[in-house]
């Protein structure tokens, strides 16, 4: 097939992604707001793709939100990151996979800095030695968790129970892809498709049957802006950024939004609620919002995972319109049930 236009440009930006033996580190935001997504990612890696992926109990934050909130100095952050690498080294792994986009960008930035300024890397190693006695090697491969799902998108498609297709019309679902700014805006060559035409989520959507929407503010920030959300007085900036995106995408009538950064889906989800309260405006049909998903949630849904096992009950903007369009089976009564076993027992599905 001859590649033309944007697809031809995308093909120029292909990054190397390791194919097994991953060292996984969690995201501050993801595990608080989308815990089901991290669970789903590990389940897909281990049970569906049969990969070796390891989580060490003593890894921590990379300190990225503190760093971009400007309270944590750069050398402190570099040393915290060096400790993460040391734990990976001690565990015998070389392929580093962060769940977070802020982390991924920060790791990329730090590795580039150490490459250009080896004396800083030496100083960080000395800091780490003094503080913890640990030694580290830099990873042989650094890939965001969405890069891994992108790499295996075809394998996921072959095992899929559902496709991103409207069961009533037979048409592909129209999907907005939103890429976290720090995925490739700083170092375009480190992201699949670069900064202008990132393909990491578009590739998943197309492989799983959906159709990606191109709209004017596609690359605009969701509005997290670190301090612009962390402090209540600044949140007007945050909601204004998301609003700009919704206004720009709404004329294309998207069925859903897919994201790869931990913060973005939370903001795109919650700010729809806030705009509804402030202006009485909603961006989906029939007074509903546009459902917002993480890529792990979408992968889990096409593989047939239970929506409530994926944590979709934690979203403020209801996801059911998309589940209904695809034809995904779910039990509405179990949505807010906290004890899964008890709920199934009550319904006579299992005997306890």
């Amino acid at each position, binding site marked *: 097939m001859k590649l033309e236009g944007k697809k031809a440009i995308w093909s120029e930006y292909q990054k190397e992604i390791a194919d097994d033996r991953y060292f996984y580190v969690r995201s*501050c935001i993801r*595990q608080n707001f989308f815990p089901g997504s991290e669970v789903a990612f590990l389940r897909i890696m281990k049970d569906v793709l049969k990969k070796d992926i390891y989580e060490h109990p003593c890894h*921590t934050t990379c*300190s990225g939100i503190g760093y971009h909130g400007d*309270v944590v100095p750069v050398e402190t952050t570099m040393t915290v990151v060096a400790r993460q690498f040391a734990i990976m080294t001690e565990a015998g792994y070389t392929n580093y996979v962060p769940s977070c986009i802020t982390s991924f960008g920060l790791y990329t930035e730090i590795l580039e800095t150490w490459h250009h300024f080896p004396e800083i890397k030496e100083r960080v190693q000395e800091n780490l030695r003094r503080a913890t006695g640990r030694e580290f090697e830099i990873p042989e491969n650094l890939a965001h968790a969405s890069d891994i799902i992108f790499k295996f998108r075809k394998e996921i498609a072959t095992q899929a129970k559902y496709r991103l297709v409207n069961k009533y019309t037979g048409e592909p679902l129209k999907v907005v892809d939103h890429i976290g700014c720090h995925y490739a805006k700083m170092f375009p060559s480190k992201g699949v498709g670069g900064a202008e035409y990132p393909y990491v989520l578009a590739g998943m959507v197309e492989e799983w049957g959906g159709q990606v929407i191109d709209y004017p503010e596609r690359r605009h920030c969701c509005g997290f*802006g670190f301090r612009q959300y962390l*402090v209540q007085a600044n949140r007007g*900036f945050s909601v204004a950024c998301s609003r700009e995106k919704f206004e720009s995408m709404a004329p294309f009538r998207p069925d859903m939004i897919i994201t790869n950064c931990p913060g973005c889906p939370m903001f795109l989800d*919650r700010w729809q*609620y806030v705009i509804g309260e402030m202006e009485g405006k909603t961006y989906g049909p029939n007074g509903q919002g546009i459902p917002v998903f993480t890529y792990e949630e979408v992968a889990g849904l096409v593989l047939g995972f239970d929506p409530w096992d994926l944590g979709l009950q934690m979203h403020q903007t209801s996801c059911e319109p998309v589940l209904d369009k695809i034809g995904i089976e779910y039990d509405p009564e179990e949505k807010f049930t906290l004890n899964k076993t008890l709920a199934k027992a009550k319904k006579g599905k299992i005997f306890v």
Partner: protein
Amino acid sequence: MGKLYELLEKDIRFEEGLNACMNCGVCTAICPAAEFYNYDPRRIVDIVQSGDENEIEKLLKSEEIWYCGECMSCKTRCPRGNAPGLVIMALRGLSQDLGYFVESEKGRQQLAIKRTVGESILNTGYCVFIDMVTPALHPEQGPNWEWVYENRAELVNRLGGNFKGDGPGILRKIPKETLDELKKIFEVTGGLKRYEKIEFYSHLKAEEMNLELDETLDNEYFRNIYTTNNGSHTKQ
């Protein structure tokens, strides 16, 4: 070049972020913060590049260096390979080290970030822990979050997490030895010193503003810096 410029030059982000700006303004054109705030990254980079000590000092005490959201869209588009966002980070670091941050409404907010995210890193091992995302401080999270927050332990575990448990997993308890290592890293690399400076200068400012400030998140000064928006920051 004067003392402030020399201090900025010591920050690796300044060295990486500023080569030679030709003032084309592409950074301002792409900047989400410049759309919303009275903010112009091109102007800031131009002032810094001039090396004018008085003007740099004004910047370090200004509101405008706190408007950037650090999305780094500017880095992608700059035809000279500059990163105004990194220059901003160097300015913010210096503003805190010199105590100038308390001279602006937006700068004073650093205490709120230090006491929430900053403390969380050392106490929980993560920048954010669900306990701190209270519906009171986060009304924008919506009514569903109230249910999530109230049932967080059961819900996280129902989804396969390990809420405040031992071993690996979501929202696990980070072992004390690990938290001790983090604290030691902060001690060795200047992180704790930065925290102390933020507290020190904030206390001085609270006294000057005649606002009560204790160690909690519930006092006059904290409430003031967390919620005050004098309305002069944005484009009308």
